[in-house]
């Protein structure tokens, strides 16, 4: 069985497990799996920019957190009550539109930069959203956070199903982009911006479209997260984990291929759950993530799947 067959078999197994977990698993396991879905969605979204376009976005969590806040605050404000039971999907939809608009706007300053500067500027996007939410405490609750009205609370089975659907949709989105003209254009830009512009591509518009597209599932995930959590504050919705773990996941699995963020996400989440729930380490989990990140950067900067793939190709090369 070659590498593609192996991945397909693993995917079927994973899907069976994802369906079986709510039926047989404990509540803790279901919650942990639900979060795994959300993180992998973020990692896949990160890789639309990071993998195809070659621009490192350290601010994916900004879209997630912003949408979580917009969703919860809209519902708490009570303006959508007239919609009846449709108010929750409507709130999430508005949050997605707002987030897409913000991504569209940020494209102007962000894509003035490239490389390291782009990466750092995207991280300042998270800080900006975070500081604004903390400072506008009359609306957002500031550092106290906000509670979700129990009427709007999303039960775990519903959220789990939504998370799984979102994950499958994100995988489909990344596959579709990989095969689309937009994906080809993005890859051309990644390989050489000069060459891409000489064949007549409007670089900025391609980049902006890719950025906005990558923000959409993250925003949906943020909305679902906010309503399921029942309470959000800046650390829960915009914490370093929401913005860094997706990057770690994508790079660990292998950036630039659809399976990479999924495999990396499962690995990181497995490490995370074992660290937090079973090992009871004396040091904070953040320190351990830091060490993992450091190790990947030094040992496997191209990721597990890409390293394995290179080795396979090397072995299969006719001598």
């Amino acid at each position, binding site marked *: 069985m070659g590498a593609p067959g192996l991945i397909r078999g693993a995917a079927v197994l994973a899907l069976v497990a994802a369906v079986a977990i709510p039926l047989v698993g404990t509540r803790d396991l279901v919650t942990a799996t639900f979060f795994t879905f959300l993180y992998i969605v973020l990692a896949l979204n990160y890789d639309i920019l990071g993998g195809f376009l070659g621009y*490192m976005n350290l601010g994916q969590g900004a879209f997630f957190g912003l949408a979580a806040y917009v969703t919860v605050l809209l519902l708490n404000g009570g303006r959508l009550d007239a919609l009846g039971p449709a108010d929750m999907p409507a709130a999430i939809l508005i949050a997605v539109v707002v987030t897409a608009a913000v991504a569209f706007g*940020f494209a*102007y*300053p*962000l894509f*003035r*930069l490239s*490389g*390291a*500067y782009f*990466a*750092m*500027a995207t*991280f*300042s996007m998270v*800080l*900006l959203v975070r*500081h*604004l939410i*903390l*400072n506008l405490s009359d609306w957002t609750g500031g550092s106290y956070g906000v509670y979700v009205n129990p009427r709007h609370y999303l039960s775990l089975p519903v959220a789990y199903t939504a998370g799984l659907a979102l994950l499958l949709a994100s995988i489909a989105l990344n596959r579709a982009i990989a095969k689309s003209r937009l994906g080809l254009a993005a890859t051309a830009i990644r390989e050489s911006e000069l060459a891409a512009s000489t064949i007549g591509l409007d670089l900025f518009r391609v980049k902006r479209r890719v950025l906005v597209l990558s923000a959409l599932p993250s925003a949906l995930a943020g909305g679902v997260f906010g309503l399921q959590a029942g309470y959000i504050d800046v650390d829960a919705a915009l914490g*370093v984990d929401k913005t*860094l773990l997706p990057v770690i996941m994508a*790079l660990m699995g292998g950036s630039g291929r659809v399976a990479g963020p999924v495999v990396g996400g499962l690995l990181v989440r497995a490490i995370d759950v074992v660290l937090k729930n079973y090992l009871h380490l004396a*040091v*904070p989990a*953040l*320190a*351990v*993530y*830091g*060490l*993992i*990140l*450091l*190790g*990947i*950067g*030094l040992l496997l*900067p191209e990721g597990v799947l890409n390293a394995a793939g290179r080795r396979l190709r090397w072995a299969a090369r006719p001598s």
Partner: protein
Amino acid sequence: MTLQTVIDLVLGGISLGGIYALVAFALSLSLATTHVLNVAHGTFMVLGAALATLLFRFAPIGWPLAVLILVLAFAALGLFFEAAFVRPFAAKSPEQILVGSILVTFGFALTVEALLGYGWARWVDPQPAFSLAFPFARVTVLGVAVSGTRLTILLAAAAAITGFHLFLRRTPLGRAVRAVAQNYAGAVILGVNPRRVSVVIYLAGIVATAGAGVLLALAIPLEPYSGLRLTLVAMTIVVIGGVGSLPGALLGGGLLGMAEVLTAYTLGSVWSPVVSLLVFFSVLVVRPEGLWGRRA
């Protein structure tokens, strides 16, 4: 607003700007010579402030000895950092160095900050904050009273920046640093040893950055997790001032320092980070080539 307030605000802004300029210049030199983007740069400021707080609070050794310990400790840390996290990238392409170095230094920063926050909360103080309170008297210059603390910060930052400048302009090693920053391959062909340049830049840069952290702690308390924000401030100045440009760093640092101080005075200090981020994004839209005219 009285004249006294204006003077206090300007001195506050310029002294903060001086610290920022020093930190940003150290960051941009390391970026220009080794292509390593050191995300842990601000973490060294936090570490400097933390070690200084520890020394002054618990070790009655007087400040000359404390300064010596600080310099030696961060020189050693600089050598270690260069050997462990910069040297492994030496032979790679700039793109590989970029991705690898962001991962490695981000990981380093997270680990150090998490351990520092955890350890400090556990053994020193449940509310970790690094600040130094020196009884600097107000000084009267030309008939106006100015804050001694601010003046000390400004003079120390100016001395460090001048030292950096003289080193780069007047010494053979400084010339080698500028050569490597300008054209790596060309410098190596002419016999410059890039390893030596890298060691010197990280040794001096990390000592200067930790020193800047100590200066900053004289004015405002730092927290274990301030590091990433400070790195971002330095990055912002490098982007708006231009890589490896000292005038750019001074201009960018002054602009950001003044903006933060004026915001704190008018809107409250919680708005300072928002305003500096808005300044950053605005400069990107209006002058993407940087204030000093060179493309970052």
